[in-house]
């Protein structure tokens, strides 16, 4: 145990003192903040640009309908020919010219209206103009049917089916996606961590082989301890790096926002899916504030403590499994160029987990695919975490599934570490051979 501590300490310090590690650790947050600021800045510029649409209205309709709105304004041409209007719209740099001919019949008029632009018009503009036409046409038809606008407005109330669990817990639409997204963020974090720090473990093993120190070390400690120490030491370095990133990025963010005077809440409204979704739904739901409150309540009610606990559990188990495979690969090869054929099969389940997570778990967190992948040990750390924000037990992930996945993960962990340690033990003393899978199979039996 004492020796394991020594190894962990050495591996940790070797990683942390590495120049590229230091540079990466302190440069990344700056780059990241820089990127966010750039995006925020560009969005702001984009928003500030007003698009002007020229309107040549020869009819009696639509006299007051085309008024400026956010980002778009309308400029009315009067008593000039269509050609002249087109020319001046183009000359003034307008996005387009809307031509409404003079017809008595509104339907006919609408059918013969044209929107002239230099290039293909953006859907954004088209939607706005079409919306005006649609509203006017609807009103027209209602009048023909003898329905007043007020009466129609009462009908306009959209129906929203309320849902609840059998136990009477209120459900909210979209909350599943939000929850899966939060879980997905955790899962994604695990995947990134495995790929980055697993790679570090692998390179560190290769380095010990190429520098030929390996036999000196394993004459003092068991290869298994060396492997374990390396994995733990490297991951602690990784945790350090992540912690520094989170702290410094949030500090930088704060400083940057105060300098550039950007309102963080405005930014998050455009970038954050959570708010984006509620925003989209808001106009359709009459009791907006109440719903928002419910969403807030739901998010607040996500069992964060439980989620973090399981994040740590799945993170540790998943990382140990994968990084011991990485260590075994490092032991099997002589140089990093030989690793490709072995790395792909490791990345595959990780990618699969992320894709399955985003495609299947989002839409149906408790469907058979989601359940299957959240039990399968190589994907469960990621997929299960996407399901867990819905809670455990009633209305969430059944307890047996969580337990089964953790047990399977532990069994796999023991099995894989055992296998990896065998390959590692043989591999670190093998030089000059480019190993094949068949070779590795043979090593298991040594």
């Amino acid at each position, binding site marked *: 145990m004492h*020796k394991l501590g*020594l*190894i962990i300490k*050495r591996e940790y310090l*070797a990683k942390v003192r*590495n120049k590229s590690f230091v540079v990466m650790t302190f440069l990344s947050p700056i780059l990241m903040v820089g990127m966010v600021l750039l995006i925020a800045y560009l969005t702001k510029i984009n928003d500030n640009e007003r698009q002007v649409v020229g309107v040549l209205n020869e009819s009696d309709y639509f006299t007051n309908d085309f008024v400026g709105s956010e980002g778009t304004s309308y400029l009315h041409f009067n008593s000039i020919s269509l050609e002249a209007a087109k020319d001046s719209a183009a000359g003034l740099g307008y996005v387009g010219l809307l031509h409404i001919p003079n017809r008595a019949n509104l339907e006919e008029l609408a059918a013969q209206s044209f929107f002239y632009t230099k290039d293909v018009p953006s859907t954004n503009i088209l939607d706005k103009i079409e919306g005006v036409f649609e509203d006017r046409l609807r009103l027209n038809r209602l009048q023909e049917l003898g329905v007043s606008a007020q009466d129609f407005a009462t009908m306009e109330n959209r129906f929203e089916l309320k849902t609840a669990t059998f136990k009477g817990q209120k459900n909210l639409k979209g909350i599943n996606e939000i929850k899966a997204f939060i879980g997905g963020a955790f899962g994604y974090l695990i995947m990134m961590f495995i790929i980055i720090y697993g790679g570090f473990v692998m390179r560190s093993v290769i*380095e*010990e082989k190429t*520098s*030929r*120190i390996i*036999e*000196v*070390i*394993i*004459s*003092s*400690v*068991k*290869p298994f301890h060396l492997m374990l120490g390396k994995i733990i030491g490297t991951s602690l370095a990784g945790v350090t790096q992540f912690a520094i990133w989170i702290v410094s990025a949030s500090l930088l963010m704060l400083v940057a926002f105060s300098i550039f005077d950007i309102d963080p809440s405005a930014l998050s409204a455009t970038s954050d899916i959570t708010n984006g979704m509620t925003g989209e739904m808001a106009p359709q739901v009459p009791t907006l504030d109440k719903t928002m409150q419910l969403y807030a309540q739901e998010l607040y009610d996500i069992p964060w403590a439980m989620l973090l606990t399981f994040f740590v559990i799945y993170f540790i188990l998943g990382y140990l499994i994968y990084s011991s495979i990485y260590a075994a690969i490092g032991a099997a090869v002589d140089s990093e160029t030989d690793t490709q054929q072995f790395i792909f099969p490791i990345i595959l389940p990780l990618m699969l987990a992320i894709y399955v997570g985003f495609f299947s778990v989002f839409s149906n967190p408790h469907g058979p695919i989601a359940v299957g992948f959240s039990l399968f040990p190589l994907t469960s750390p990621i997929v299960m975490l996407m399901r867990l924000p819905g809670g455990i037990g009633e209305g969430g992930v059944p307890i047996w599934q969580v337990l089964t996945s953790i047990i399977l993960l532990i069994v796999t962990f023991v099995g894989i570490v055992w296998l990896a340690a065998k390959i590692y*033990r043989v591999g670190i*003393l093998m*030089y000059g051979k480019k190993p094949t899978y068949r070779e590795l199979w*043979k090593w298991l*039996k*040594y």
Partner: protein
Amino acid sequence: MNNILVTKEVTKQYGKHLALNKVSLEIPKNSIYGLLGPNGAGKTTLIRIINQITFPDSGEVFFDGEPLKAEHISKIGYLPEERGLYKKMKVGEQALYLAQLKGLSKADANKRLKYWFDRLEIGDWWNKKVQELSKGMAQKIQFIVTVLHEPKLLIFDEPFSGFDPINANIIKDEILLLKEKGASIIFSTHRMESVEELCEYIALLNNSEKILDGKLSDIKKAYKNNIYQIGLEVAHGEALLKELSNKFEISLAKFDAAEGQLDFTLQLPSNDSKEMLAYLSSKANINRFVETIPSANEIFIKNIQDKEVNA
């Protein structure tokens, strides 16, 4: 218990390849024991088994009378043939780390390292990175790390490779000094001249089997074949040579008529040389009569070749 290490019928198989076949050795305490054999004979496998890096399929190993176990690791110092250091780590820090892995406390390791660094005159390397050192310099540090925890048994696998002759001599003297202080040493090498110089006992491995072991002087006695180098002062050398060659096998004969000096080697049927001496002294002045003792190298080559002929 006069043996520091005993192996009994140690067998190790790698897949279809038999790396060691029932190898039994007895390595006496406080001796230098040469483990010899061509490449691929199984020396490294045996050494790795002693260091518990790999484990035998069958057979037993005893360290100082006890079955080999994990605690013995701290009583063994091993300098592998494939050796290196962490390139980016500082010399002193690295030596401390390796010493602590062998079970020394940090303070203790520090004290001993200072002693050894002064002794080998490398004190000013402490804060250098290994990648700044030459190969020979790195080897010195590896040597220090191997012996630092004062193990009862030291195993050196090709210890002199990478050293220039001056440093090789320094290391050789240190090895002899360690033996004087009571350590037992296993010495694996191809360099036969260092075997002659250092080893009291040897074992010869070939094709995964032990083909010869014992005290080097005994082995040499067993392998001498009564060949004598003879130098005579005689007027009529040719006649004497002709007479002798009728009865004995003679080689490398040379007669210098001007000086009256005859040199040759001659094989006697037994190790009884009295008769021959009497006969020669009646014919000439003997200025040389030396029995040829085979060198370790000759024994080595002879054994390996015999095996190949038989195989």
